[in-house]
């Protein structure tokens, strides 16, 4: 299904070259960074993008090309390929979709596109379009970014207010932490109202989620199958319902702006803790300079399965508790990041940025570190 959708979008986009009205755009982020300490942190628990105490330009640098063309008056095809430094700049099809403009206010897209979870989901990788070096990872770094499916967008005006409604359905699949996470029956609805200076957005989503991490799954199955099959089923993430709730507010007067987002992700019947994440950011624009400040918080460290285990009584409770704690130790995160960023508009398509972030881990302060980064963002 997925491959078929990609192929359709691609064929439509390529066939269009004959009409000579194909639009090519691109963007690039060249980002270098260095952490103050050489920390040993598992990838599931590192909000510093893998930087260590040597300067690196590959963790976040990326290059992307987008081609789009009109199939007819109402239909267009878009393909975006993206090469990330962390993947040795291997070229990936990030997005490929067909959009059908039903009316001037409504469009339906089919294919692979960014899951519209957050206020800036769509333009997350386009560094030029925002004031940070990267969008706050506490909120934005989720293991399900791209959706294969359908999306409906509706927008209209009511007086000075613009409102946008969106719905998306489909599936996702992503490789993380030596495993694969899959979401079936994924759906998402969002609503946003905005005027000249204020924008408020809310989103609700759900997916039947399966996380296949062979080592972890084998451990849970081996330990619990015989003695506590109910607890095993509770802990394993197999077709379990994940729920996503998010709200965002932004005030932008163009001389200054302040905004924030809050998200809550919960896969109740699984070993993963419920995640609560939020950030606030504020900045001012002085001509070509945009200094800003951001504070973000991530909390997801509750130990799952304790109540279910307690119900089984002794001696299981004493015997299995250490295992629950060990699993929790792999996924638990509780941290804050405080950042100061400055953006300089070098040209109408090039921005230069510098950022210093202080990362403070509330579970293990040996992970604390300061991250310094510089970036060049380019669009064409």
């Amino acid at each position, binding site marked *: 299904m997925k491959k078929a959708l990609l192929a359709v979008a691609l064929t439509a986009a390529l066939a269009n070259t004959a009409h000579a009205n194909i639009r090519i755009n691109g963007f690039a982020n060249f980002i270098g960074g260095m952490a103050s300490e050489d920390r040993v942190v598992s990838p599931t628990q590192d909000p510093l993008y893998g930087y260590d105490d040597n300067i690196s330009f590959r963790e976040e640098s990326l290059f992307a090309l987008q081609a789009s063309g009109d199939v007819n008056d109402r239909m*267009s095809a878009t393909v975006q390929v993206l090469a990330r430094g962390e993947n040795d700049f291997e070229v990936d099809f990030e997005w490929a*979709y067909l959009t059908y403009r039903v009316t*001037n206010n409504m469009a339906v897209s089919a294919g692979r596109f960014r899951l519209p979870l957050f206020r800036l989901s769509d333009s997350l990788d386009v560094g030029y*379009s925002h004031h940070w070096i990267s969008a706050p990872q506490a909120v934005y770094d989720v293991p399900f970014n791209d959706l294969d499916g359908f999306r409906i*967008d509706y927008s209209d*005006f009511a007086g000075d207010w613009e409102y946008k409604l969106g719905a998306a359905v489909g599936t996702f699949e992503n490789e993380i932490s030596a495993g694969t996470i899959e979401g079936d029956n994924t759906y998402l609805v969002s609503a946003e109202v905005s005027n000249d200076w204020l924008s408020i957005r809310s989103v609700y989503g759900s997916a039947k989620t399966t996380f296949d991490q062979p080592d972890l799954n084998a451990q849970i199955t081996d330990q619990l199958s015989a003695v506590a099959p109910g607890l095993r089923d509770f802990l394993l993430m197999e077709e379990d319902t994940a729920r996503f709730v998010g709200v965002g507010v932004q005030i932008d007067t*163009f001389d200054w702006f302040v905004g924030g987002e809050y998200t809550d992700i919960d896969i109740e019947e699984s070993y993963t803790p419920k995640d609560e994440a939020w950030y606030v950011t504020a900045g001012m624009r002085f001509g*070509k300079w945009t200094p800003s400040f951001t504070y973000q918080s991530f909390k997801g460290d509750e130990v799952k399965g304790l109540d279910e285990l307690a119900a089984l009584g002794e001696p299981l409770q004493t015997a299995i508790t250490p295992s629950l704690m060990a699993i929790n130790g792999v996924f638990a995160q509780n941290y804050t990041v405080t950042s100061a960023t400055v953006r300089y*508009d070098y040209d109408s*398509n090039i921005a230069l940025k510098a950022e210093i972030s202080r990362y403070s881990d509330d579970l293990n302060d040996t992970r604390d570190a300061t991250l310094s980064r510089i970036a060049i963002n380019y669009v064409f």
Partner: protein
Amino acid sequence: MKRTIGATLFGALLSLQAVAEVVVVVHPDNQATITKQNVQRLFLGKETAFPSSEAATIVTQPASQPLRAEFDSDVLGRNTAQVSAMWAKLVFTGRGIAPQEVETDAEVIEFIQGDKNAIGYIDSASVNGDVKVVNLD
């Protein structure tokens, strides 16, 4: 001599500023009632059609043109970098098609002659019978 040149240049700059006024123009046959708010929404990619529901073709000038900066700040109320950032967001999310860009006022007029649904902006001094000025007040 240098001072004379300086004075002449200064005078030229002053007179340029006195004359240069950006005006929004459309095809003379365009019957839509267009407000400043429509112009802002069209040039920021929030709307794709005129109030008459005809799809609009947006034509702009390059960031290197002083008139562009004037249009962005006076009519859109943003600086050019912000406008570019907003368009980057729309283009790379497939939610908008970047405006056509032409180099000069004459080319804007030519473009509008060739496309009845085009909307652009030029210096008021360049206005001729081939375009209709949109009243933004």
